[in-house]
């Protein structure tokens, strides 16, 4: 163990972070730029992190960049954290030629492999880098995969047993895109030497946000309780029964931790598509339609006995207050909550 991991509190030099992009949209970086209170640059400073290279932010370009990456890959220059945004592009036929690193004549896939061996921490930023994500949708003719997963299967580019020099596996900050806070907090904990394997769930995602369900804090919970369902997008009711919402199963704190000040997918009036999960890109049904068998949604909460769910749903539907029933299928509030009548003097 070097001095950094032994006494991070006394760490003299900042942790150096290198960020690569491959088969993705850059949206996780753009989301990250929205980090607030404080802003991204201040947050990284506070975490003791120096951006050695980031494709959207760094000054150096071209040959200087390739030289830097070569030094890092050879081990001539130390760095601490490798972030990959976007899926690993293995195609066509395993050559990686669907994404060549500009100015280097080598597939990005090979650069990732080399750098991952040198980094103390490897972070997959977003669901593409973690699992393949949207880039692996359809028949995945581009052979996209994540760093340590290929969809729901262990492996990916680096293999199921990969551990970075810190001893940690690839940290999968999954999401499409990530919430800036998810990554920034991981970086802060790494910077403070307080991030360990115990902070990861079974997909190596940070427990900090995957101990929650998107359902937690959902402003439509009262509609859910009474199975007062929206039938069309833009209506106010629960979107689980008809509109494909996966909030009761999806693991993320989106309705506790606001997006862009006050938002979330459900706050935006559209269903959760479970974008932090491996394989979310191919749900097996249209995203905004709930698949059903005999009128009962297939995707019920994972840890609730189906019979109980059906029984409770029937009961709560029978008990739905008129207010919720009317509001559920309306765009605007039709019936506000009412208090008990005022006392007359």
């Amino acid at each position: 163990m070097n001095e950094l991991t032994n006494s991070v509190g006394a760490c003299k030099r900042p942790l150096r972070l290198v960020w690569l992009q491959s088969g993705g949209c850059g949206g996780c970086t753009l989301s990250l730029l929205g980090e607030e209170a404080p802003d991204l640059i201040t947050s990284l400073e506070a975490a003791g992190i120096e951006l050695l290279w980031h494709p959207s932010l760094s000054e150096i370009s071209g040959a200087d960049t390739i030289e830097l990456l070569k030094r890092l890959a050879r081990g001539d220059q130390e760095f601490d954290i490798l972030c990959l945004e976007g899926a690993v592009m293995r195609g066509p036929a395993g050559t990686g030629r669907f994404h060549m690193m500009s100015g280097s004549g080598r597939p990005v896939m090979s650069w990732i492999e080399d750098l991952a061996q040198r980094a103390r921490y490897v972070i997959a930023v977003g669901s593409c880098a973690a699992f393949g994500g949207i880039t692996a949708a359809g028949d995945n003719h581009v052979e996209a995969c994540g760093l340590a997963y290929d969809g729901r299967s262990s492996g990916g580019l680096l293999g199921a047993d990969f551990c970075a020099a810190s001893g940690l596996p690839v940290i999968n900050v999954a999401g499409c895109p990530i919430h800036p806070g998810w990554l920034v907090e991981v970086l802060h904990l790494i910077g403070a030497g307080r991030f360990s394997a115990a902070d990861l769930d079974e997909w190596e995602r940070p427990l900090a946000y995957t101990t929650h369900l998107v359902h937690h804090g959902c402003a439509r919970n009262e509609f859910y309780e009474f199975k007062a369902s929206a039938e069309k997008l833009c209506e106010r009711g629960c979107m689980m029964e008809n509109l494909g919402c996966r909030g009761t199963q999806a693991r993320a704190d989106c309705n506790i931790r606001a997006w862009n000040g006050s938002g979330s997918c459900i706050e935006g009036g559209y269903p959760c598509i479970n974008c932090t999960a491996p394989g979310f890109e191919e749900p097996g049904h249209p995203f905004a339609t709930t698949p059903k068998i005999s009128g009962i949604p297939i995707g019920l909460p994972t840890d609730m006995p189906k019979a109980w769910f059906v029984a409770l749903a029937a009961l709560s539907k029978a008990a739905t207050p008129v207010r919720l029933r009317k509001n559920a299928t309306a765009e605007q509030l039709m019936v506000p909550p009412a208090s008990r009548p005022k006392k007359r003097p």
Partner: protein
Amino acid sequence: MTRLIVGPFNRVEGDLEVELEIADDHVSNARVVSTLYRGFEHMLIGKVPDDALVYAPRICGICSVSQSVAAAKALAAAAGLSPTHNGANAINIIHAAENIADHLTHFYLFFMPDFARDVYAGETWHEAVANRFRAITGTATRDMLPARAQFMHIMGLLAGKWPHTLSIQPGGTTRSVSAHELARLSAILAGFRRFIQTRLFGDSLERFGSLSNADELEAWAAERPADSCDLRLFLHVSQALNLHKLGRGYDRFMSYGAYASTAGFLFPGGVFAQDQITTLALDGITEDLTHAWYDSLTMIEAPSAGTTVADITRSLAYSWCKAPRLNGKVMEVGAVARQVICGHPLIRDLVAQTGGNVLTRVVARLLEIALVVMAMERWIQEIAPGEAFCVHGAMPDCADGIGLTEAARGSLGHWLRVRSGKIENYQIISPTTWNFSPRDGEGKPGALEKALVGAPVRKGETEPVSVQHIVRSFDPCLVCTVH
């Protein structure tokens, strides 16, 4: 003659490589290479049409809403829907928020840091520019990031999140807003207006937006010291480096028209070439595959019948980018195109004097920040709380639709064909597909390839900084380009 491969280009969205031939002190030839292929057009085949609204925005993290708008318009055309009055206004506000944030990100994070490079250390203006715009550590980044993040609260209110919202639908938006939320939107916009008036323009948006020719711009810049605001500082550097002589393209511009409403477009579209505005006939648009890594029966395809079959064995190919042409001609798209076509007098005059170049492209983008923020203020007032935001309709089993819009960096089109209730074909032509196309079958270079020819090479430079300015002046988005 020296050959040079320049890449990776950071501070552009996505991956780019440029191959240069250098003769004496200038670039004599350029080939532009898009290096990443993901295959969204292939991925979409066989999906239910509405699922395009999940996949298409994820083509791009910086033009995500533009991709949503184009997909929603293509679906709306196929289903015979149009958005409600409130929905159209909300879509315009969401789209404007993305485009303005993109313009801002481009200027502060992507474009200006090149002038802080050490290669300019001897210039009188360098210290001021380096303090302000040095990548990551410059003071501008610290000012701009919080302003941008607060501005994006518009997305939290109207679109759930950014990027990758599903709120934009063929019939409007999924998020109705109340009067008090409209008040909140106005407050966010007022905060942003204060930032750009103070830091960027050093003047009111109204005044900057009303400058009508190059002389007025020059006089305006001279009113105050160069370091009094970021735009004046840029204009000062531009004058010192003759950026108006850098990166001229073909001077043929195209726009689909930006920000549609029942009243028409805020910036109407069309074609501008040789001082003439003409209407745009969509059937003149084709993509030439001669120098792109795709297999096809024919090398020139109309997008409605376009194909995307990756083939790295093609011997003439050097890019994953196809070569779009209008009536066989290369077009430049982006803020200059929009403003010259809709007739803004300042951009008309700049183009008349020196054409499309690094200076014009940057000024047009910043001008749009002023014009569009003022339009957003009006759109917020035009939303009627209590009225519908979205209408719904069924997609026919068999239908075709075209969705056209303007992303920050130019014209974006989606061509959709639905058969048996599924997507049978989906073709996308993105702004940077136009600007960064490879050569076509006739050997005509794309817009950037042309703009790079003649770029000066300073003494001792191995990678010309002029090339950096020209490339970034287009505000390219390479993830969109190939998709």
